[in-house]
């Protein structure tokens, strides 16, 4: 089933190229919908205590010990749901007037993302990882906005490819140049028993490859230009799903495979995360363009996950609170929460830009009066993003901070400044965009249509659901 789920969008991409172009959007929607429906079915049958489930393992290249191995467990269940849902929403958010190449590329990107989230063997995990990257490059370059898009696409591509190369080399060393298995589960088992003891450089290389994708300062330079230049649906995917691929990689690779190195360098990782948290929040304060501002605020939010991963490394068994559990659960929920809210915000931003034809913060004012529904949606998502209780982000941030505080109180205390700064950033956005007198000229903006509200409805529902009853979502990864 997972294979079907993964390749449905790829098949859709193929069909799009074969069928007449006015079918493109519909075919892409069907492809993504198939994936979403399968994911929902799988999750409804998912047994949180069952460990790895729905696994498919086929020998692929026996001489290299490469199997095709996919499966669902606690770490990827939620994030797969996020990826399938957001892919469908992103395709739905794309106007049908776009050429079919666009839909083929975005479907291909979805395939890459689903594959990367379900793969359990480094070999094809890496293939999918790169498969997600290449369409994104073309989507930004060909269908992006602004003169800067070529440069942004190139910088995005270079950064991520360099990271991938580092990771690939690291993994080749880790697996002894192909003599050992590439299987994540087997590697994790060997790491647990102490048989796997890669060197510090291997750890650094794999970590760097993942952190580029997350991204963590100072590897984040590609992010703001790429988010600003990408078409709005692609920006939704970039921030909602692609950045989660890096975090998911931390969960899947760093924590299980490098426990010793993580323990040794957890503090460094936390300091870097802290730096990124403050960096993102404070740089966001100075942005004049809405997309770039949201990109930096995104940088800040995802860095909380890295903070938690560092805390997992520093955890000492037998504390008052179970730090590794708390922190990993926090990371998983934060991925889910941030993916939803950030994607929603980017979608709304795209709508605002498209309607107004402008993107600067100073170009707007008093939108509450002109577009009350848009304002309401934006407010809810913005408050979810700044960690308001009873919305998705809060539980995740509480778990992350709870875990991190237990091992590094001072650092975590400083990191809470990031929460304050995020509040300042987002409230400034709300103030600039939605309050104040409506400008006489160009102030009126059409409100959300029913279709657009419908598209956002699942996002809002999940944001509320995950906020009110996070326990329900955390149950997937409870064991």
């Amino acid at each position: 089933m997972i294979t079907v789920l993964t390749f449905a969008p790829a098949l859709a991409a193929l069909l799009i190229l074969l069928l007449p172009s006015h079918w493109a959007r519909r075919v892409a929607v069907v492809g993504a919908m198939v994936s979403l429906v399968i994911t929902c079915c799988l999750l409804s049958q998912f047994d949180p205590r069952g460990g790895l489930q729905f696994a498919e393992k086929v020998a692929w290249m026996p001489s290299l010990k490469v199997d095709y191995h996919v499966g669902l467990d606690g770490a990827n269940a939620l994030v797969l749901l996020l990826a399938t849902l957001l892919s469908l929403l992103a395709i739905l958010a794309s106007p049908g007037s776009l050429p079919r190449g666009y839909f083929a590329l975005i479907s291909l990107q979805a395939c890459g993302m689903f594959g990367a989230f379900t793969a359990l063997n480094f070999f094809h995990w890496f293939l999918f990882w790169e498969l997600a990257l290449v369409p994104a490059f073309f989507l930004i370059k060909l269908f992006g906005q602004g003169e800067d898009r070529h440069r942004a696409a190139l910088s995005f591509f270079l950064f991520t490819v360099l990271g991938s190369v580092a990771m690939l080399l690291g993994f080749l060393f880790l697996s002894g140049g192909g003599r050992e298995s590439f299987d994540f589960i087997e590697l994790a088992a060997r790491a647990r028993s102490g048989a796997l003891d890669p060197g510090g450089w291997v750890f650094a290389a794999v970590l760097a490859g993942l952190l580029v994708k997350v991204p963590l300062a100072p590897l984040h330079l590609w992010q703001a230009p790429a988010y600003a230049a990408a078409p709005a649906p692609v920006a939704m995917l970039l921030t909602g799903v692609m950045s989660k691929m890096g975090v998911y990689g931390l969960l899947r690779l760093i924590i299980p495979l490098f426990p010793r190195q993580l323990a040794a360098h957890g503090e460094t990782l936390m300091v870097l995360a802290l730096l990124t948290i403050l960096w993102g929040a404070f740089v966001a304060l100075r942005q004049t363009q809405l997309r770039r501002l949201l990109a930096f605020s995104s940088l800040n939010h995802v860095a909380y996950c890295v903070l938690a991963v560092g805390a997992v490394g520093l955890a000492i068994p037998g504390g008052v609170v179970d730090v590794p559990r708390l922190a990993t659960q926090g990371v998983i929920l934060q991925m889910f929460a941030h993916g939803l809210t950030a994607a929603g915000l980017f979608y709304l931003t795209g709508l605002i830009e498209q309607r107004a034809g402008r993107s600067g913060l100073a170009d707007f004012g008093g939108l509450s009066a002109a577009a009350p529904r848009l304002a309401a949606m934006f407010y809810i998502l913005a408050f979810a993003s700044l960690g308001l209780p009873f919305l998705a982000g809060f539980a995740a941030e509480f778990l992350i901070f709870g875990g991190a505080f237990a091992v590094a109180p001072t650092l975590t205390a400083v990191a809470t400044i990031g929460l304050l700064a995020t509040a300042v950033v987002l409230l400034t956005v709300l103030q600039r965009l939605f309050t104040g007198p409506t400008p006489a000229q160009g102030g009126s903006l059409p409100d959300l249509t029913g279709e657009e509200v419908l598209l956002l409805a699942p996002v809002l529902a999940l944001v509320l659901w995950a906020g009110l009853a996070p326990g329900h979502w955390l149950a997937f990864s409870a064991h």
Partner: protein
Amino acid sequence: MSASTLALIPCLPLLAALCTAGMRNGRRAAAVAIGALAMSALLALWALSQAWTGDAQVFPLADWLSVGGTRITFSLRLDALSALMASMVTFVGLLIFIFSTGYMAHDPRCARFFCYLSLFAAGMLGLVLSNNLLLLFMSWEIVGLASYLLIGFWFHKPSAAAAGKKAFIVTRLGDLGLLLGLLVAFTQTGTLELYAGGAGLLEKDPGTLVWGVGAAKLVSLLLFVGAAGKSGQVPLHVWLPDAMEGPTPVSALIHAATMVAAGVFLVARTFPLFEAGGTLPLVAWTGGVTALIAALIALGQFDIKRILAYSTVSQLGLMMVGLGAATTGAIGMYHLFTHAYFKALLFLGAGSISHGCHHEQDIRKMGGIARAMPVTTAAYLCGALALVAFPYTSGYFSKDAVLVAVYGADRPLFYLCAFSSLLTALYVTRQCVYVFAGAHRGAHAPHESPAVMTVPLVILAVFALGMGGLFGGALQAKLGAIHAAHPFPVIATSWAVALGGMLLGWVIYSGRDLRAPDPLALVPLQRKLWFDELYAATAGRLWSGLTALAVLLQEMVAALAELVQELAQATGQFFSRSVDGRLIDQLAVDGLARRFHEGGRAAVRFQSGFLPGYLRWVVLGTLLGGLFVHWLLT
């Protein structure tokens, strides 16, 4: 009383908020909101009656989340403190809701207003009833959100939007303290429940050390930061006067009864931690300083609501003194209750006055209101007397309790409080003279407000005058106060500062030409002691400095990346031009080919096609061969 019934108290207004979110009809929304809150109020009264007679109870509701060995269970606590707070919040809130139907009747977004009000009430009730520090924090944040929305309700006014943002951010600064306190408590004890049959946060000693400080001390300090932010204690009080930008019922709801009381309530709720941590003197002194500073600033203000706002800050300071100086939370809470009624009365009265004066808020442009608005005036004066602590009004009893406690605990602080009480009497008299006496100085003739606005005023006035005397003793006893003797100096001081301050105000302002500059409104007081400027110069600078630093770093890294890119490009160019182009292409590949080509060309010259030429070579070769053979043979 079951858990679900108790949970209905905050849930009913929440439901009302959800229902009214999509409504457009203001009257229907008001009916829904008022109905829900009225039911909450009845339930709260029932809960109060249970708590009054029975023991404190904990009602577990549901697991919010459970991770590993950590379970966060949301539970409610019903004891005298929470039941009293819940009843007060619902009752005062109900009156404010009713008042709002009149005040906001002509606003097109009236329905949305009631949605926010209900959300606020829900958050406040959740906060009050919570037995879990995390649930308390979450409700606390909801209250913050609602106050942000309410203060910025008239979002088309940039000042209102800015005030809402300021309120949210300044209180969130305090909230960070609360969050950190919560995290310390959580990581030290593994639980966030306040009472859990002996295993709760307040029932066991968190003892162990972090950062070399006792955990209880640290937690209570951090919680106090949160409380100070919410309750407008110096230096985090700056948001509160700006919050006057909201509609008047909002000011009443936020300032009088509820939101600002949340901080005081938090200290009272977690009183055992403060006691164990030894942080009470800090609480008391912060309160004392706040009381004095706010009372001073109130003297220099001319906006009727701003005066009341600073008076609120000052009274909140007194509540903190009452908490910090006593051995239980009862005295501070007692002042909180009486204050809630008379300050709600004053704010609603001020709203009624400015409504009658065509939304004029400057007291210099009022005057002669007493004749035009008799009901409002009478009610307002009742509230003013209670605020001044005129003997035998409710304010007198509660303030007296505070003074008694502080007299026994800390003498200098007692003098500080007495002096700020004197100032309170002075500025209240000043305000009343400006507003009610003499002839009207404004452009439009004032008119009395409709009954829907005056009836709540009258009800509140009754409470403002009578509550202290009627329920004071029982209330304090229920909250756990130990009856203390009233030393004569305290009683004398109470009387002296109240009556003396009023007398002084009367002497200064009565018969004066109120159009002339005010003798007491000194520039530093008018400028609010430059707190805003101070913040702009310090925290604001620091903040923008940090921002600039972050941007600088960002640019530096970007420049570095640019440099790397340039370097890569230069290296690439070097390789493409020099190595590839010159060495490999020109020298190695093309060069070799050319050499062969040239060699071939050279060889071609022999093949001239001239047969005798070939023959010559043959002959030459033969001769040379012959010579070679000859040389070989000899």
